[in-house]
């Protein structure tokens, strides 16, 4: 079976919504953090087109203080890949799920085993920010064979020739990293955000979503002047850290949804 060339559920879903003229909104939530399941469900109900579930890792090098803190607290509360994934089949969202975690968890479990566990948990796609294109082939092949779409990250520093290969290799969508730096809200949208999204759009017709550094609905709208959508992470997790719970997350996602729908 040549599953590698098939379009997966995440990509099909996002392409359809884009086709309907909608800008795409993905919410990131740290798995295992207190109340995360309810937050996932309200985020979906409030208009997220897909959910990124973080599996906490001990050494999250692509994450800024907010997601680091949530990850560490989740780990201290006993979160593990198994405990987070076990909860996913019970989540009532109606949208595709990606996991976002770090490569060692996949490496340690073994590619096939990890990919199979994701599939069995109702996960459609995986994002591994410390697995760059040059090192990614063995994982991508195992993931594709199991039916997991691997979402690759394109950085502002990625050179032209690699960008084309990277967009080609990416499944689900292309994750355009909006700035030079780690996750976290910023006061202004970096110039690199629309720049990298634009460069991706020139070489692929897959959905291109910009993430890292988006901190307000206005910035999301600005990013979507070029990108097909945005990923909102730290802003969501900060609501949880601030004790606003699923309700706060729902309100936040609704504000992004409304802004994007209003254009």
């Amino acid at each position, binding site marked *: 079976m040549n599953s590698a060339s098939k379009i997966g559920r995440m990509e099909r879903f996002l392409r359809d919504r884009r086709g309907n003229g909608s800008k795409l909104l993905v919410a990131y939530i740290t798995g295992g953090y207190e109340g995360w399941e309810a937050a996932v469900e309200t985020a979906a109900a409030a208009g997220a087109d897909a959910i990124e579930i973080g599996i906490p890792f001990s*050494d999250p090098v692509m994450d800024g203080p907010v997601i680091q803190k949530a990850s*560490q607290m989740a780990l201290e509360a006993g979160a593990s890949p198994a405990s987070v994934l076990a909860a996913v089949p019970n989540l009532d969202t109606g949208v595709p799920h990606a996991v976002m975690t770090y490569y060692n968890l996949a490496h340690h479990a073994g590619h096939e085993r990890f990919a199979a566990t994701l599939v069995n948990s109702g996960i459609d796609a995986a994002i591994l920010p410390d697995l760059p294109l040059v090192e990614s082939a063995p994982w991508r092949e195992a993931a594709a064979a199991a039916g997991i779409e691997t979402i690759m990250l394109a950085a*502002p520093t990625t050179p032209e020739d690699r960008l084309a290969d990277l967009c080609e290799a990416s499944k689900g969508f292309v994750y355009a990293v909006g700035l030079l730096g780690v996750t976290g809200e910023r006061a202004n949208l970096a110039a690199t955000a629309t720049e990298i999204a634009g460069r991706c759009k020139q070489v692929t017709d897959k959905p291109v979503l910009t993430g890292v550094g988006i901190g307000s609905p206005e910035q999301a709208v600005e990013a979507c002047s070029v990108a097909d959508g945005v990923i909102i992470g730290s802003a969501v997790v900060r609501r949880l850290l601030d004790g606003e719970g699923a309700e706060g997350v729902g309100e936040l996602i609704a504000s992004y949804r409304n802004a994007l729908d209003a254009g």
Partner: protein
Amino acid sequence: MVMTDPTDEGRFGEFGGRFVPETLVPACEELEEAFRDAWNDPAFVEEFHQILTDFGGRPSALTECYRLSEQLDVRVLLKREDLNHTGSHKINNVIGQALLARRMGKSRLVAETGAGQHGVATATAAALLDMECKVYMGEVDMERQELNVFRMQLLGAEVESVSSGSRTLKDAVNEALRDWVATVENTHYCLGSVMGPHPYPWMVRTFHHVIGDEAREQCLALMQRFPDVVVACVGGGSNAAGIFSGFADTDVRLVGVEPAGGAAVGRGVPGVVHGMLSYLMQDEVGQVQEAESISAGLDYPGVGPEHAYLASVGRAEYPSVTDDEVVNAFQRLARIEGIIPALESAHALAWVIREAASLRGQTVLLNLSGRGDKDVDQMMSILGPGNKR
């Protein structure tokens, strides 16, 4: 042959590679190209060695330990990296990388540090070459190496405390990587050991090759032959890689000594963190574990990928020693040879002392990677004033 160049993908056997966020891949490629170019440029190599000589104090001495040798019935020779400027082997690598950074047009250095030796060395190179410098250091380490924090500040560096995770070297590396992801356009990450993404493990070993080259010549001059054993402590593994590389093409026994609480090679489980595939202390699902060692410089759950390779093919061995054995070795060298070693270096000696019976009659070359001034405070709190132990 071992300890030659890695593959184009930066692999030593299966180990190594470049597991960093996509943002940093071009920076690693640029660094690799710049390093290849510089190392082929005689003017660069000459300036490197000139600074190591005039500023760093190289070559470092080879010291015969007469009393210790007699007591152990093992001939012990020390390669005196403790006599280098700033007090450890770290200066070799740092001078190399700072010169390279300048050549690449980068004006700022970031570094991680555990014991503070690499941070002090980096701050020193930055002062020498007029560069900006920021050093990340775990909160726990800042406490136990307070003196080195102040030394870095005197040298003009900014020391940033790291309060995430285990608050030691591992987390300082994470924070330095995060800084680099955001500042890669004007900043060079001056990594302190033979670890991280390609080309670091290879480049850092190359800058430390001078230790092995000198020691080889000094041994030949002294004994007209090689030692039987070369031993060094292993945190990330840079001082060991430096001295091993002078003897890799011989049949000299190579021994890297890990702390019992940070025995990445000893446990032998492969994993990926900090840009490399190597042996890594981790739990049953792959979360990286916290190392626990008396010495801040060895308090690291991973090890450089080339050491993982040398271990996997059986060219080098990696036993571990306990904190107690280290404390005893530290005191013994001070008392009978008049040398206060770094706690890191005392690991290598602790192994020689423990294995003395099996090493009887042999000649052991020990890389004394640093001096112990930085550890005196910590030892005083362990032993108590008066040193009764």
